[in-house]
């Protein structure tokens, strides 16, 4: 029941200049900043996506071993990196939300997790589609696959928990604690799965012994990674903007209702 010092109405208080990076926690400033930033971000993401897509899907040569299916990796690998990198961002947002009680961090975490879950699901799905022709199976209980699956569960659990409460602040706080617990547990899961695999499961599928990537494949892969990262950032920022405005609308409506109440 701690009273949050920051205003929950999210109407950016004028004046009172704040110091350091904390000023980005001001929702009003966030809205003004992203208002100018987002069109550029969308534009860049679109350009990079078209460029990276063409490069990866059309211009880059097929792999001598995997043939055309190597192109699936131009989607798969960026998704895997985003799912993991995004979780680090979620952990950072959770710390900010728990320590400084910035409502914006709560909102950002809440809007980040469905996108993270989607990215995780896409990573699993594209990997599965790639695994079918390459490994001859849709799914292997391999260490990598299993730990990404667990990561996906964390994303989905966070998304569900942060939306499960009537009071969004309580949901944000609970979800932040969950995200941190997941962050602590993630290495344990990762390594336990590694040990489990080496101790128990004989390699049923010959893994490709990590081939050094040729530049023909590496560069389009990096281009696609940049493209998907930009797209990810644009989608998340747009969602956060929408959520901030939604809250503003709600608090304005509440204020209007209160005024009506006192008038009558």
């Amino acid at each position, binding site marked *: 029941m701690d009273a949050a010092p920051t205003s929950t109405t999210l109407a950016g208080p004028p004046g009172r200049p704040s110091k350091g990076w904390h000023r980005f926690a001001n929702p009003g400033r966030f809205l003004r900043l992203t208002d100018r930033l987002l069109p550029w971000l969308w534009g860049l993401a679109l350009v990079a996506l078209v460029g990276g897509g063409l490069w990866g899907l059309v211009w880059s040569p097929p792999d001598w071993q995997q043939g055309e299916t190597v192109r699936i990796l131009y989607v798969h690998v960026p998704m895997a990196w985003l799912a993991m990198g995004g979780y680090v961002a979620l952990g950072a947002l959770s710390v900010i939300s*728990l320590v400084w009680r910035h409502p914006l961090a709560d909102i950002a975490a809440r809007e980040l997790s469905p996108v993270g879950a989607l990215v995780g699901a896409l990573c699993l799905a594209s990997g599965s589609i790639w695994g079918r022709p390459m490994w001859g199976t849709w799914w292997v209980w391999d260490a990598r696959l299993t730990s990404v699956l667990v990561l996906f569960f964390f994303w989905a659990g966070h998304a569900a928990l942060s939306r499960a409460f009537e009071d969004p602040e*309580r949901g944000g706080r*609970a979800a932040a*604690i969950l995200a941190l*617990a997941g962050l602590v*547990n993630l290495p*344990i*899961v990762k390594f*336990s799965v590694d*040990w489990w695999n080496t101790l128990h499961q004989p390699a049923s599928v010959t893994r490709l012994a990590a081939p050094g990537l040729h530049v023909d494949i590496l560069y389009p892969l990096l281009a696609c990674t940049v493209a998907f990262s930009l797209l990810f950032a644009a989608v998340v920022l747009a969602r956060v903007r929408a959520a901030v405005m939604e809250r503003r609308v709600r608090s304005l409506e509440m204020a209007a209702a209160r005024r009506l109440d006192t008038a009558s």
Partner: protein
Amino acid sequence: MIALLERELRLALRTPGDSLGAVLFFILVAALFPFGVGPEPAALARLAPGALVAAMLLAALLPLDRMFGAEAEDGSLDLLLLSGVSPAGLAMVKAAGHWLTTAVPLLVAVPIAAAMLNLPIEAWGVAMLALGLATLVLSLLGTLGAALTLGARRGGVLLPLLVLPLAIPAVIFAAGAIEAQASGVSPRAFLLFLAAQAALLAPLMPLAAGAALRDA
């Protein structure tokens, strides 16, 4: 805190149906596997370690969603939080209470389920030890889950969703220990990993659960 633990135990003794229900559920889940896989002893023995651990964890999850629920509704949770016991201490007591009132009866039932699943009798002792440690991990994680979902809509559905992924390492090592013993290998490494997990979570989870309780 001792008084709180006593209170937990006395409450559980007054309503033994809750613990018995979990035990029956555990045996029923274990009994479902022979129906699903077929009654061949060899196939069952192969499956037994994993099936035991899975059934055990599911059964231990059952009472979790009421862990704080009843006390939050009648207001005694607020009083407990005001009583000077730190929220983390309260969460610790709750985890210990859950382990003593739910996991211990389940452990007593392990030989029954193990016999039904045709687990070699030499592995029963290790099975009880491994499951005891695994349920300790689950009690700690489950306390956090229960504190987080307290007051949530559909909290009962959400709770397993949050807790089970976190419990995967415990499943891996508990099943590994039982399987190692059943096939004549020393289960020591697995048991040590399990104990390490419990030791790592024992201070961390009550702290996190306490933080969640303070917000509830």
